[in-house]
């Protein structure tokens, strides 16, 4: 009998997991369910729904930390922080529309579980860099915690890093403490026009290596966008410096103000340029920034119709390909080449995701180590079986 279990607090969560353990039943762990169409298809015996364990526990703006229950919707967290002019600096993407769902549906913990970060990943770090601590239940039905609420903490292993990006396969969380930062006063963007992919990567890397503190560097079509944030006089000075630095790359430069900038970077963050053609395959590749153009070039050599844009100074490639049963996974991963990187299949039909490695396959020694780590939390394989492939 398959069903949904919806605990209301940490104690009920632990009971539910103890029960599953005693039944030998597996669980699909779900928050808002906004990423069900991402990753390997879910195939657990029951759904464990954490959305009932919700709410802000404590928010201390001057401590730069918010503690919340695992099912708390992202929009609730973001609205709370905005009241105090703070933000989640890793710029969590909202992939709902890309995946054919409504926008604004996810939870903060769901974003942490995929370790998703947006354009500010470059300067502010990944989602995992902002998870200060958590409590949850492992696959033995034991409640445990790691980390804390303070910025600096090296007491014991940093299990927060492991949990972020684990797709719910190690433990089910009931509470997290997350680092927050002041939101910038101003956001402006310098647009360079007419650069090809390789020239854009060079311009973005030059900007990143300058003292002008770029917080976003993306290349979409013929537009190369460099974001500058902060207090007004600083933003002015840095934009001026950037124009001088990049004067030789193109004659065509323009600036976007705060409002237009925010719209542009929201689109980059959420991969909006690939939302259309909902049946197309979408990949997300991470590579050294200077290697991106060559990788896309190799893919276009086989699939000239491929659509691509770049974030993270060229180090993040969002790639759209016409649908194929194998999602072109050999082509995409083969194109990464010796400079290193990895590719994640973000959008494809359930059948394709079941058949194709969604996450980058690992060398045998590393894969064996990852399996042992999984077993150290969840020895019976209770949580999200098969989710990470």
């Amino acid at each position, binding site marked *: 009998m398959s069903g949904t279990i919806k605990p209301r607090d940490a104690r009920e969560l632990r009971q539910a997991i103890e029960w599953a353990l005693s039944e030998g039943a597996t669980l699909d762990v779900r928050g808002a369910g906004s990423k069900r169409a991402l990753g390997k298809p879910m195939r657990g015996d029951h759904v464990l729904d954490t959305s009932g364990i919700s709410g802000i526990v404590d928010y201390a*703006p001057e401590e730069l930390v918010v503690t919340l229950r695992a099912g708390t919707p992202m929009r609730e967290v973001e609205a709370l922080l905005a009241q105090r002019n703070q933000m989640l600096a890793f710029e969590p993407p909202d992939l709902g529309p890309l995946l054919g769902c409504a926008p604004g549906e996810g939870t903060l913990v769901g974003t942490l579980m995929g370790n998703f970060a947006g354009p500010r990943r470059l300067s502010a770090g990944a989602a995992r860099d902002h998870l200060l601590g958590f409590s949850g239940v492992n696959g033995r039905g034991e409640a445990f915690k790691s980390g804390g609420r303070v910025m600096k903490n090296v007491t014991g292993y940093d299990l927060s890093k492991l949990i972020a990006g684990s797709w719910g396969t190690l433990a089910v969380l009931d509470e997290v403490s997350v680092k927050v930062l002041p939101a910038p006063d101003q956001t402006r963007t310098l647009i360079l026009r007419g650069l090809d992919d390789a020239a854009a990567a060079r311009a973005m890397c030059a900007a990143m290596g300058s003292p002008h503190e770029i917080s976003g560097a993306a290349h979409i079509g013929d537009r190369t966008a460099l974001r500058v944030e902060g207090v007004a006089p600083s933003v002015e000075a840095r934009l001026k410096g950037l124009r001088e630095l990049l004067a030789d790359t193109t004659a065509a430069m323009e600036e976007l103000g705060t409002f237009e900038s925010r719209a542009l970077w929201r689109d980059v963050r959420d991969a909006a340029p690939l939302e259309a053609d909902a049946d197309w395959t979408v990949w997300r590749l991470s590579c*050294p920034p200077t290697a991106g153009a060559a990788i896309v070039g190799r893919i276009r050599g086989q699939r000239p119709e491929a659509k691509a844009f770049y974030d993270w100074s060229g180090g993040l490639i969002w790639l759209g390909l016409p649908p194929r049963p194998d999602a072109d996974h050999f082509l995409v991963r083969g194109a990464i080449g010796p400079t290193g990187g990895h590719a994640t299949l973000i959008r494809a039909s359930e059948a394709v995701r079941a058949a194709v490695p969604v996450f980058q396959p690992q060398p045998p020694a590393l894969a064996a180590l990852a399996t042992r780590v999984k077993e150290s939390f969840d020895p019976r394989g209770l949580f999200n079986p098969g989710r990470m492939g």
Partner: protein
Amino acid sequence: MQMPLLDPDILRRRGEIVAALRAIVPGEGVIDDLDSMRPYECDALSAYRQMPLVVVLPDTVAQVSAILRYCQDRKVKVVPRGAGTSLSGGSMPVGDAILLGMGKFNRVLEIDYANRCVRVQPGVTNLGVTKAVEHEGFYYAPDPSSQIACSIGGNVAENSGGVHCLKYGLTTNNLLGIEMVLMNGEVVRLGGKHLDAGGYDLLGLMTGSEGLLGVVTEVTVRILRKPSTARAVLIGFPTEAGAADCVAAVIASGIIPGGMEMMDRDAIQCAENYVGAGYPLDAEGLLIVELDGPAVEVDHLVARVEEIAKERGATTCRVSRDEQERALFWAGRKAAFPAVGQITPDYMCLDGSVPRGRLVEVLAEMREMSKTHRLRVVNVFHAGDGNLHPLILFDANDPEELRRAEEFGADILRLCVRVGGVLTGEHGVGIEKRDLMGEQFTEIDLDQQMRVKCAFDPDHLLNPGKVFPKLRRCAELGRVVVHHNKMPFPDIPRF
């Protein structure tokens, strides 16, 4: 300090082990005579000393792999060591363990300015990374105060911080990739020049794992462009509460300084006597707030910080006029430990982290404890991130005083945990705080951590006696207990 009992069988087989190591590392890479091993008998937690079984200094990854595989096969323990600057005894030798020194891995392998990263061997010093790139205007952000000596491999093991981590992060936030050797001799690579390696974030787990999970043989770090301007503001307050208040107000106003340090009255006096940095001797609390970035931004933020400081009742507020003066402001803070060393035979440096909002209360309670334990305490700390460095003054030649200092230290760390903080912010658990882990973690919390350890090192051979107060065998930890009597509790909503 109780270390694991020595295994007489290993001690008896010492000759055979030394010979096996000589077969792996030829020449002078194996050190087994007592005099030559002496420099390795402790790290920077020098109150505790122990001679290792034998010292081995490999210089290739293949040698590291062969050594670990040999040790795994023969169940010989291994203590990895970088530069030996751990303040928590992280690289303190164990009597029946090989000391694996990584000092020969001292080369910068690749500098890639376009991708803003540097690939080095783990024995390169922290400052060595910055030295390799500073002529191009770049630097490596984490700056522990031992940065001249400490190795980047050790920084990975300890997740080292420094005075700039509020804005620029700890090692974990600046690390892109590593190559490491597992206890079974397997070599794995995590991350690289790209961001966010797929799969479980083992890179994040390795960072700060205190040498218990694997031996790092290569490190790739992110480098940053040096800020074009940095200015420091020296702010004195008539009360500690005023200084702590100012810290909170600066952050609440949306400013994240490059560094924000605080010193108490005794620390101010000691540092001033030692360096003559021009610190206000009438202040009870002194802040050094450093703002960095483009000149116009720094000027703007300096003005705001000055304004906030005056509102909070600052009695001194001086802004550095040039690089020389900025360096002088910092000189006192950076010399605070040796300065305190001038007024006491020995001191013990602690490292708890607390929520900033509890700083004043924690300082006051520490003073009370100081009376009870009849020992002086001097406070220097990273106020921006609530990381305290209380220095307990004592005389190690007096065993009774050493005991009181240890008890005082433990009480301070318990206090940190009680107010919602942690035992260690950047120095690591090592042997020093090992027995206090139960103050912060339950047995289940610690068992989960030990199970992670088992995934890497099933025989607990790597850096034994560190971090965990009580080691449990992996076989025992691996057992799953199922409570069959627990019924599916009708009160949980089900659909």
